[in-house]
């Protein structure tokens, strides 16, 4: 029987939420790694029981945990993230050079085909890969070394590589996004990279149309059409039809185009979702109303989805990795909030209900569709 498993990372541990295909009743386990920040968990597309989790604290640093049984048990694996060669410097907030220094793993992206291969996006921004199920990690140095690295700046949350997308059609193609450097693409399995930020406009930087320096918050792709990318930038929702070579704004009638997550319907490549947030200085929904916005036209024309979501006095945020979709026939969509709620819709966003209300602040949500 089909079902869904949600992997929820929070400020104080990880939780696993499971349901059958109806998605009405949920079992909750956790906290796993209690007391530790869990920035992200993700399962292998090639083996759904193989999970990876990023666990960290300011006291004891970074750990990577691996499960081979769908999250019932975990074991710590390699946590040694060392930059290749001399790390060099990037720009600090005040514009001075600052040594590259590892802080934490923001995002884990398992290979589409090999459960033992997994990528890690880290702060300070770099991309690492393990080919032995997380025991050992090696940087893919072509990203930081492609030329613009010394000019990258951190965003307010740190200089993090938070998005990794593996192209299911072009097996050597991958995309990453960094706050606040921008989006990058590799066409040779991560050996070399190029910035793909043409068309982005960021008023807060010296050259609004610069090749790098944009605070990209999240990128999403539909697996059936990997040349089309959707982006939630600091401000602006963007779309690319040419694998990131050029971008066009598709914010359209959104009440505010600031936000963090963006995702695509599992079966409708032109149906996308965002959660508008009031502004970069007020990280909560406009007017205290928590609304997911859906576009069925790939952007520009948006409709608010409100049924079951709080429409007054709601001042939570939804972080960049905290939205996910399942691939059941009726697409399920999920998101977690900084207030500890995880909301679910089993009908593509028309109706919502909380699965759980009182978790620690939610950092990430991933959905696994189980057969």
């Amino acid at each position, binding site marked *: 029987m089909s079902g869904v498993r949600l992997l929820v990372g929070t400020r104080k541990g990880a939780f696993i939420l499971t349901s059958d295909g109806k998605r009405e009743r949920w079992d909750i386990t956790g906290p796993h790694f*209690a007391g530790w920040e869990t920035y992200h968990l993700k399962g292998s597309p090639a083996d759904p029981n193989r999970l990876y989790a990023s666990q960290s*604290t300011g*006291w*004891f*640093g970074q*750990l990577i945990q691996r499960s081979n049984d769908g999250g019932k048990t975990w074991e710590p694996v390699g*946590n*040694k993230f*060392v930059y290749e060669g001399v790390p060099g410097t990037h720009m600090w907030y005040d514009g001075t050079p600052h040594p590259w220094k590892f802080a934490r793993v923001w995002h884990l992206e398992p290979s589409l085909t090999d459960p033992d291969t997994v990528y890690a996006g880290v702060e300070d921004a770099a991309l690492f890969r393990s080919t032995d199920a997380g025991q050992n990690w090696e940087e893919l140095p072509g990203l930081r070394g492609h030329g613009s690295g010394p000019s990258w700046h951190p965003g307010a949350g740190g200089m993090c590589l938070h998005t990794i997308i593996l192209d299911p059609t072009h097996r050597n193609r991958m995309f990453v996004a960094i706050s606040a450097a921008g989006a990058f693409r590799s066409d040779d399995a991560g050996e070399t990279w190029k910035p793909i930020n043409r068309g982005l406009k960021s008023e807060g930087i010296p050259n609004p149309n610069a090749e790098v320096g944009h605070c990209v918050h999240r990128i999403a792709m539909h697996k059936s059409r990997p040349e089309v990318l959707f982006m939630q930038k600091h401000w602006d929702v963007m779309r690319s039809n040419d694998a990131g070579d050029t971008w066009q704004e598709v914010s359209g009638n959104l009440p505010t185009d600031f936000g963090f997550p963006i995702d695509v319907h599992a079966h409708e490549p032109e149906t996308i979702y965002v959660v508008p947030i009031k502004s970069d200085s007020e990280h909560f929904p406009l007017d205290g109303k928590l609304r997911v916005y859906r576009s069925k036209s790939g952007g520009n024309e948006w409709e608010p989805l409100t049924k079951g979501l709080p429409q007054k006095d709601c001042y939570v945020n939804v972080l960049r990795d905290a939205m996910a979709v399942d691939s059941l026939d009726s697409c399920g969509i999920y998101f977690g909030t900084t207030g500890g709620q995880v909301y679910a819709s089993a009908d593509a966003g028309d109706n919502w209900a909380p699965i759980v209300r009182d978790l620690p602040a939610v950092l990430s949500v991933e959905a696994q569709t189980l057969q």
Partner: protein
Amino acid sequence: MIRVLLPAHLKTLARVTGEVRVDVPGEPTVVSVLDAIEASYPMLQGTIRDHVTQERRPFVRFFACEEDYSLEPPDTPLPNAVAQGTEPFLIVGAMAGG
């Protein structure tokens, strides 16, 4: 046999309760005790000190016989009471944050 008291999170990670005991050849020092702990409990590598620089993590402190060894050179000998196992070597997570 050196007795070592780990902070709660590291006990959970190492899957131990109470004190841990490690063999340290020769005169025990901060670094030799840490080497022994990491050899016995590899999952603690990187959590007490940096993998590469071997520097103590900023929010971790070392105590023995009511003395703070956190800022001492890593090869500083530990007190006889620790060497003889009558007092533990304490690895402490700083009280900070929420």
